[in-house]
């Protein structure tokens, strides 16, 4: 253990002194911020520029009634005009204007059932949809004119929609009657899970550096000198611990850079949602996932001298952490379904699938979680043992990469 810590310290220090690691440490979150901000900036511009100035002439009194019901943001670019303008007048004016539309609500509109939206040339055709808010009031007005009372007209104008209801969704709607509240609850569940997901992802990426590190040790032939001071198991564990620390450092850098930004930019009480007891379980799952994959990576790394000559077999193992992606679709559609459960109990996918499910499910399936974690712990133990055997032989084999057959032989030794 003491020797492992020395190796861990060395690997940590070596990477922290490495310029490219430091750069990526800060560059990744900065890139994230840039890409997160780009659409926001873009959005802002559009909101400022794109809201066309809509001039409305309201003979029917529909707009003035509607205006009182709508929030201010939606009506601020509408402007009522008092004088009626003919089509020619409007078109003439539009020749010289930008970002402007005219709507003339006259008695004729109710008869013909179509409203002309006159737009300046620069406006997109989609701007017509801005006028959609007038549809219901106009319809109601039309019905009222035909002799219905205003209540009857409202009901008739609102139309009919079809909504699917299954036994599950029925109970869900019952459980969360208030829409806004359920969204808050979802966030409450997702924030800690997303945090654990970031940890898992980040230390997995760092974990891939273990692969390189083990392979480098072999390529640069340092392994034998190092192994004259400690056992292969200690070297392997040291690497796993060291890169774990690097991964955590990376997460910390992410948090320090991104969290304040999120807190400033997004209107969600992150910390409140984040610091819940469940977080410990989630982080535990993330760390367990790291240990599992780290043991796989470190052992494959020990069998490969040159990244370029990596065979399909090793390449395939490299893809393992992304296996849960296959399950994402089915899990999203049914978080308690059979595929979700299979994914939960298959050790390679356990961390990823479990995290996604816990984000989706309102009631945590504790028995499943406990079984899954038990499977995960046993798997980590088994994988570490196997990794130790592969690492021990692989790291000292010079000049060629190990074949799957050879690796199988080492495992059985």
């Amino acid at each position, binding site marked *: 253990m003491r*020797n492992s810590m*020395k*190796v861990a310290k*060395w690997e940590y*220090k*070596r990477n922290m*002194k*490495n310029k490219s690691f430091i750069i990526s440490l800060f560059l990744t979150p900065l890139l994230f911020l840039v890409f997160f901000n780009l659409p926001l900036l873009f959005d802002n511009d559009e909101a400022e520029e794109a809201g066309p100035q809509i001039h409305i002439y309201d003979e029917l009194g529909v707009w003035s009634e509607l205006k009182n019901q709508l929030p201010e943001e939606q009506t601020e670019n509408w402007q009522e005009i008092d004088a009626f303008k003919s089509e020619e007048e409007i078109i003439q004016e539009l020749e010289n204007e930008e970002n402007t539309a005219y709507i003339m609500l006259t008695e004729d509109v109710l008869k013909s059932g179509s409203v002309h939206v006159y737009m300046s040339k620069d406006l997109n055709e989609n701007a017509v949809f801005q006028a959609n808010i007038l549809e219901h009031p106009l319809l109601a007005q039309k019905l009222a004119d035909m002799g219905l009372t205003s209540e009857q007209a409202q009901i008739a104008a609102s139309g009919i929609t079809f909504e699917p209801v299954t036994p599950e969704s029925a109970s869900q709607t019952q459980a969360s009657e208030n829409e806004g509240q359920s969204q808050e609850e979802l966030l409450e569940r997702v924030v800690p899970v997303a945090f654990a997901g970031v940890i898992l992802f980040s230390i997995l990426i760092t974990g891939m550096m273990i692969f390189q590190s083990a392979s*480098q040790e072999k*390529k*640069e*032939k*340092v392994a*034998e*000198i*190092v*192994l*004259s*001071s*400690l056992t292969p198991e200690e070297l392997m564990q040291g690497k796993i611990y060291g890169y774990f620390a690097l991964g955590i450092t990376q997460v910390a850098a992410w948090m320090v850079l991104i969290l304040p930004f999120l807190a400033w930019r997004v209107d969600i009480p992150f910390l409140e949602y984040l610091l819940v007891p469940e977080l410990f379980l989630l982080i535990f799952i993330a760390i367990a996932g790291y240990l599992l994959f780290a043991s796989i990576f470190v052992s494959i790394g020990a069998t490969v001298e040159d990244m370029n000559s990596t065979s399909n077999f090793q390449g395939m193992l490299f893809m393992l952490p992304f296996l849960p992606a296959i399950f994402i679709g089915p899990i999203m559609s049914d978080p308690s379904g059979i595929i979700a459960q299979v994914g939960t109990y298959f050790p390679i996918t356990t961390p990823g699938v479990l995290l996604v499910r816990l984000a989706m499910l309102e009631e945590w399936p504790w028995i499943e979680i406990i079984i899954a974690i038990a499977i995960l712990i046993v798997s980590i133990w088994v994988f570490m043992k196997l990794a130790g055997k592969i690492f021990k032989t692989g790291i*000292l084999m*010079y000049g060629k990469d190990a074949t799957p057959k050879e690796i199988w032989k080492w495992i059985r030794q």
Partner: protein
Amino acid sequence: METVLTVDRLGKSFKDTRIIRDISFHVKKGEIMAILGPNGAGKTTTIRSIMGIMYPDEGSVEFHNHTSKEIPRHKIGYLPEERGLYKNVKVMDILLYFAELKDYPLKKAKQRALEYLKKFGLEGKDQVSIEELSKGMGQKVQFIASIIHEPELLILDEPFSGLDPVSQEVFKDEIKELAQNGTAILLSSHQMNLVEQLCDRLFLIHRGQKIIYGTIDEVKKEYANFKCTILGSHNREELEGMTQVQRVEQNDNVSTLYLAQNVHIPTWLKQLPDNLEIQELRIDRVSLHEIFVDIATGKNLMEEGGISSDAE
């Protein structure tokens, strides 16, 4: 002198091939012991078995100053045959890392590292990245790494391979000095001349088995028989007919007579035929180098030298 390491009847096989068999020797404090042999003889396998990097199938390795079953890694310095260093780290950093792995006090290690860098002509290179060093400089750093913690036992696998003659001399002197200061040294080599100059005892291994084991003088006395080299044109039969001549080799007008082990040179010289043409005559011992080459190429000079070789 006190024995530091004993290797007893070591054996190891890969699949059905026996790599080494029945290897036994010991290394004493302050002596330089050499394992010699051609490529693939089993030198590295023997050394790796001692270091616990490989597990022998049979036999035992004993470190005398240590009672526990564990290999006393902190007291051993090891320079493997397949050696390298991390590329993108500084010389001093890596030396201190190796010292730390051996639990050697870092302050002392730093001082020793600077001393040795100076001694090996690498003064001022302590903050240089490894990748900027030449291969020879890299080897020197590796050598320093193996002795930085003042080991009791130093194991060097092919320490001279890839070194230029000047660096070879530097290494030789340093190894001698370490031995004088009481370090037990086990080194492997296939350069007989270096071993002859440097070592106290040698263990010659071929195809995984012991061929010769003893001090350099013993080996010379016992195995390196006299040979007589004569310049002049001679009749081969006549030379072969002389007493105590075991074998004759002729090359143009140079004849080499390999003499029996118990030959008495003055007596033998007196009975040279009167009509023998002698432009030059030289009596000397078969060199270790010749013994080595003959073994490696499978010539059975040893048998004629009175040894029953079981190398086959």
